[in-house]
């Protein structure tokens, strides 16, 4: 039997792109889908996906759980788990456009839900911790059910196929987001499973990533000490957990997180002013096993913003540009031009230098 994603590790090459409005203006998914067309050859039809922020204003206080099910039996089992742990205010099939390019679909559901207060008391966890735990629980223990999106007022949409088809399939033209990220995948094997596509997401964080990190197992074995289970064996998954751990649980800033996972070289640290040197040394020492090596370019999506980051040697391409209130990021300039033909200030950020874009306060 061929092994599914998670049972084996599948290296991939990729295309990534993103667009965000600093004024918090909503954009339909059409533009971001356009951006992937000129990068068609960076994917091979074995995975594509999107994350949109600000898409569920009506349910913005509820966790939007997007779940793949192998069949109705899995669904029944998972829904009974959800009912014992959550108040569900809305449960529905995620609407899709059937098309010949996308086949082998699982059942795709979405739930808007809040943890049951009694459960929070029992487990003595805050809401986010509880939801993160429930996601790990479902993904590791309920076979045939897979939560692929669990944030508030945001959602991930992904499938096996070319990303431009995946966007049309999920009707992203009907969603409006202040920030979109997208991913086209070039895996070396046939994962054949939708959960393996990107973005990878936990709570409000989503990650699209291009690269194959050489530090994978060191990172994985470290982060698994803190209650995360890497079920997919993909780089993106482990980066998502690291991000959640550093940003949400350790309350590091985005810059500090970037200086942990793409830490400057010791020789660079030594040249920094004393206070900064002390901080960089501290971060690099305490979380030395969270240093990510090997080629990567990632875009981290979070509530109200984006962060783009390259590995410290810049072994993967990534360019940034601006147009009015928008910031555009992609593996190739062509992708940016496809969204905004006359985008300005095109530049390639240096390795390890985070590009952080935030929406104006109150605008999301």
């Amino acid at each position, binding site marked *: 039997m061929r092994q599914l994603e998670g049972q084996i590790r599948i290296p991939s090459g990729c295309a990534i792109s993103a667009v965000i409005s600093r004024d918090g203006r909503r954009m339909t998914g059409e533009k971001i889908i356009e951006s992937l067309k000129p990068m068609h050859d960076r994917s091979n039809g074995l995975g594509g996906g999107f994350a949109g922020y600000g898409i569920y204003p009506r349910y913005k206080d509820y966790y939007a759980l997007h779940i793949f099910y192998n069949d109705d039996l899995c669904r029944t089992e998972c829904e009974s788990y959800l009912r014992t742990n959550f108040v569900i205010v809305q449960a529905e099939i995620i609407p899709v456009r059937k098309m010949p390019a996308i086949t082998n679909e699982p059942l795709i559901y979405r739930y808007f839900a809040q943890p049951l207060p009694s459960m929070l008391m029992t487990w003595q966890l805050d809401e986010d911790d509880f939801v993160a735990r429930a996601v790990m629980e479902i993904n590791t223990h309920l076979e045939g059910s897979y939560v692929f999106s669990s944030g508030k007022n945001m959602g991930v949409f992904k499938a096996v196929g070319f990303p431009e088809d995946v966007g049309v399939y999920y009707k992203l033209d009907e969603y409006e987001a202040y920030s979109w990220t997208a991913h086209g995948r070039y895996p070396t094997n046939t994962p054949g499973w939708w959960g393996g596509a990107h973005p990878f997401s936990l709570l409000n964080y989503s990650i699209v990533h291009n690269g194959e990190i050489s530090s994978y*197992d060191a990172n994985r074995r470290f982060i698994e000490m803190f209650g995360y289970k890497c079920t997919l064996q993909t780089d993106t998954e482990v980066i998502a957990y690291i991000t959640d751990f550093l940003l949400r649980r350790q309350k590091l800033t985005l810059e500090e997180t970037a200086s942990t996972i793409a830490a400057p070289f010791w020789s660079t640290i030594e040249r920094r002013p004393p206070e900064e040197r002390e901080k960089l040394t501290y971060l690099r020492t305490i979380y030395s096993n969270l240093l990510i090596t090997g080629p990567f370019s990632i875009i981290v999506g979070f509530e109200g913003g984006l962060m783009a980051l390259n590995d410290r040697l810049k072994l993967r391409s990534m360019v940034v540009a601006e147009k009015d209130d928008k910031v555009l990021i992609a593996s190739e300039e062509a992708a940016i031009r496809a969204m905004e033909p006359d985008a300005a200030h095109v530049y390639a950020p240096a390795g390890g230098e985070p590009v952080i874009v935030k929406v104006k306060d109150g605008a999301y």
Partner: protein
Amino acid sequence: MGINYIYPEFEVVRNDARCIRCRVCERQCSNQVHQYDKDLDLMISDESKCVNCKRCVSLCPTRALKVVKSDCLLRENANWSNDNINEVYKQAGSGGVLLSSMGNPKPFPVYWDKILINASQVTNPSIDPLREPMETKVFLGKKGSDIKHDENGKLITKLPPQLELSMPVMFSAMSYGSISYNAHESLARAATALGICYNTGEGGLHEDFYCYGPNTVVQVASGRFGVFKDYLEAGAAVEIKIGQGAKPGIGGHLPGTKIVGDISRTRMIPEGSDAISPAPHHDIYSIEDLRQLVFSLKEATEYKKPVIVKVAAVHNIAAIASGIARSGADIIAIDGYRGGTGAAPTRIRDNVGIPIELALASVDKRLRDEGIRNDVSLVVGGSIRSSSDVVKAIALGADACYIATAALLALGCHLCRTCHTGLCNWGIATQKPELVKRLNPDIGSERLINLMNAWRHEIKELMGGMGINSIEALRGNRLMLRGVGLNEKELEILGISHAGE
């Protein structure tokens, strides 16, 4: 039955046509194998005394000499090997415990040799260490995993004391007494030049070597020899020695004949008295006692130095290490059963303890399962023979490696395994001034520096091949390893896949 003759193990073969009677071999051999017969104008040899240290072979100007294994063996027997039989003869004659030195020479599996390292092809790039920075610096010590912010939300960047090493290798414990002054000086100077550490062993720190303190690990062993305030304060870290891979569960014994001059002063015991390190520390009969010793050493050094606890790799090592991690130790050093020694009972050296590869893998896993791996650093020793052994150890989960035998080889040791006689012809495991002076610390330290620099280059090459440019991204990165010819259980313990998987 008085006949107790064991045919010599080695044969000294002299090509008389080449021999010029210079008598170098005679002067060089502390075991008095060679002798010049004036009447016959002939060099003769008493092979029964030869330990095969190759000193004469190395110095003979005409390459007239070789020492080979004797073929005068007892009748072959797969069960009763020559060694087994001869050891029975020896014990029947002496009634004593057999002594040996250096590491376990028996043909047990060497797991390092059954593990292969990965390299990048196509899907990600390898990195050229000649063009790109490649980092080997490590910090040993407790890190903790939770970050704290002060009331203004600023990061509190204070870490417990760390031992900084320019590469993940240290020279492991060898006491002044078991090895010579010149050997110690070579190690101390090399460690300082390299930005790593050497280790005093349990013999105290010679007054001349206090200047190398920032690159010295000072050891506190069960005999407490040479331990006092200045000593503890001199080192960069303090190591509590519980056990040693070559002789887990037993102490040490340096005979009174070696406790002379400097050594007696450094160990702080009277000349001529035996230096006996008890098997256990008599103030540690349980894990909670260890905690008290760890903290009394921390108190004595004002919490400025990391405390290492060194144990031998034994069956229950994972649980032991987890207990040590919770005892407040900053670093755990584990010594495998192949580790060397200046003297150990043969039976113990050859039969007690477990391989370091398996011990390391299971300790690293246990500490992670318990979520405390970041509370402690792991140093492993007990036969790390090359840079690839170091890379494999780091990938299995070690923070750094201890080497001793490899360092002695760099100083000229020929692994004759007779250190316990105190007649080392290479000036290492001896206190005889005429032998000690054969080891020149200028040359010795230079050779150690060369060796470590060579290893550092090789480590960088191997890392670059894997697409890794910093040693911390290799630590615990077991996906970079594959086993060959290992069974399911071995692979499971090592936590690696088989080659081809």
